[in-house]
């Protein structure tokens, strides 16, 4: 490993994704449903990584793109070189959290993920009311989706009391062994 391959080598070690395989055909971007909404779409993101420049790498980690990606697998399904972009995105998100440089624009998305995980951390199952409540507190989007709640209740779609897994210790241990903290 030479130093001028430091970033791509690290990525490859962690994810087995070799970004050098990409020959910038753009097919992934052409098929990505959110390409228009990303500040730079997937193929461009890969090009940034290919440069192995720290400044471009941090641009990627700070981007909203990595959080917008839906992991819909459209891109890898069509990529002629089978560059696993969704897997790469998973890694970049984790790195972005580690480096504490999550894009401010992506805060709601990350908050949602955290609320989601917290909701299952202690019960093992998702409780949507808890999830929404925590998400609202995290994002202070207090009024969002409030209109939905009454009709959801009428239609029997929400439950107030969380269902829990019997072996809660087991779930908490799994969390403690994987992520200590999702705050």
């Amino acid at each position, binding site marked *: 490993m030479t130093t001028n391959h430091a970033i791509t080598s690290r990525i490859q070690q962690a994810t087995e994704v070799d970004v050098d395989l990409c*020959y910038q*055909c753009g*097919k992934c*971007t*052409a098929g990505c449903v959110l390409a228009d909404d990303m500040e*730079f779409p997937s193929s461009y993101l890969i090009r940034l990584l290919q440069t192995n420049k720290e400044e471009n790498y941090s641009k990627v980690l700070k981007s909203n793109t990595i959080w917008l990606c839906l992991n819909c697998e459209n891109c890898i399904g*069509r990529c*002629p*070189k*089978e560059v696993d972009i969704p897997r790469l995105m998973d890694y970049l998100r984790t790195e972005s959290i580690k480096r504490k440089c999550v894009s401010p624009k992506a805060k709601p998305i990350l908050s949602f993920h955290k609320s989601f995980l917290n909701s299952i951390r202690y019960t093992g199952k998702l409780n949507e009311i808890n999830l929404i409540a925590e998400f609202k507190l995290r994002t202070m989007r207090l009024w969002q989706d409030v209109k939905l709640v009454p009709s959801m209740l009428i239609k029997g779609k929400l439950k107030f009391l969380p269902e829990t897994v019997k072996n809660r210790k087991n779930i908490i241990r799994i969390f403690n062994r994987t992520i200590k903290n999702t705050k």
Partner: protein
Amino acid sequence: MSRIGVFICHCGENISATVDCERVAQEAGRLEGVEFATDYKYMCSDPGQTLIKNAIKEHHLDGVVVGSCSPRMHEATFRKTCAEAGLNPYMCEIANLREHVSWVHEKGEATTRKAIQIVTGLISKVQRNKPLNTIKVPVTKCALVIGGGIAGIQTALDIANCGQKVIMIEKSPSIGGHMSQLSETFPTLDCSQCILTPRMVEVAQHPNITLYTYAELDKLEGFVGNFKATIRLKAKSIDYSKCTGCGLCTTKCPNKKIPSEFNEGLGMRTAIYVPFPQAVPNKPVIDKEHCLYYQKGKCKICSKSCPTGAIEYDKPDEFMTIEVGAVVVTTGFNVLKTDFFPEYGYGKYKDVITGLQFERLASASWPTLGEIRRPSDGKIPQKVVFIACCGSRDPAKGIPYCSKICCMYTAKHAMLYQHKVHGGDSTVFYMDIRAGGKNYEEFVRRAIEEDHVNYVRGRVARVYEKDGKLIVKGVDTLLGAEPVEIEADMVVLATAGVASKGAEELAQKMHISYDPYHFFAEAHPKLKPVETNTAGIFLAGACQAPKDIPETVAAASGAAVKVVSLLSQENLVREPIVAVVNRCAPPLFSTCVGCFMCETICPYHAIEHEEIKDRKTGAVIKTIAKINPGLCQGCGTCVSFCRSKSIDLEGYTNEEMYTEVMALLNH
């Protein structure tokens, strides 16, 4: 006791500057079995060679070691010298004192020592050498050309015009190959049919060429100069000696809805058919799979309508064995169909077509007389999208290589479209433009600069249909990967060029090698581009890799020259470096135990079975391996595989090599 002569060359100062040549000769002279040793300034010069010849005669030498430049340089020279003096040329060995010693080491003791060592090794080896005789094989003066595309046509004509006989077999009912389907050809835009048809006719009429259409290779045996080929002549159901080619039968056949191969499924043909109007031969065949008589036992309308009574339904396929001295394989290529591409609609949309289909649509021989109309509704498409690299450079779904011809024909298609549909709008999605050829780049630039074809760099992700339009979702990577969406009337895919159908089986029948994509492999990519690794079998055209017409024709002429130079010899002379299976006295006959490990690994299928029979009763005592010296190329792989050490390679025997190695190590 052997009588070896050692001749050390100074090569001017090339060797003597770092190696003490005199001392090498002296030390060699002291070795056991060495009768004569000397050094000289230029051993390869006339006086040098005379020196060797005289020494051989004078000292009755039975072996020679020349210490000089690389054997790759002058082995042939010195072996010839020995032969002229009456010594078997294979009793001469070359010690490489220049490339492997003087030029790579500094002057000094170690360098001279190494020279002495090498000479010593070869002195020991040559004492074990056996006189060998070159192998002579007679040549059958006729060539077989398999495949009647432009490659086969050119090869056959070139060979035939040199006065040699050619047999051509073509599996379809007519020769012409893909070139006959093309509209106009890059980079000159001349009409493909116009330049091809005269040659097709020439093939049919040439006194030195025998053409068999609807014919395929069934079996190939033998070796260079003496192949025996079995040809399957598929039943055409028509007696060509009676048929006048009037075409009445084809107009009467009731089964008219069979997708035409020649028109790439865009048009229909009858069950009895001539593939296209300019076909050679211009006589029909019956396609049994679709003929009502063959399938259901009823019809025979063609027979009733034929004025000459040429139709013969119940003839089976025939087999014919021919003898030829050389074979040229020119079986061409295929292109992938649209149903190969999931994201472009799996062949669902009628107006998503291949480049080859576009050729038909744009051809002057098409029913619209060259006016471009789309297949679904016959409308003139106002917006056409061309997609390059479809299946090519796509290791995930297609093939990793570049198909090479599509950049050029896509530019041609866009150009033809712009010429024919005024006000039309064409877009080419490409990844790179590969236009490396004479006048090629200029051609592509003309499409962009003069005909205003819109080139967008990016790969299309998806094509889907909405309200009669084809929505093409691409991206412009030169604008930071900005999405581009086009509503097109027709989409043309430059689908990958792949090996022709059945290429793998054909290669296996002929024992020639092929690459992972089933294209045939040349003996050397640069220096033996039209030879295969099997002597006497040659290649030309797109059966090796996708090629355009200029390249195909160049290779075809190249292969023809190779064939002619082979056929013009009375006998073939081959180096006697071949494997032999040992023989010994009964009851053993040979140490070979008949395991035939050797047979499994011989790359040239040179190993045969030999039955040792009892002289009196004729009963088989033992089956042992036997090498066919005509096929063996002398690689020696069998030697190292034989557990019982029953095979040896002439010129590199176990004993010779062992002695050489031991002598190098001072034993």
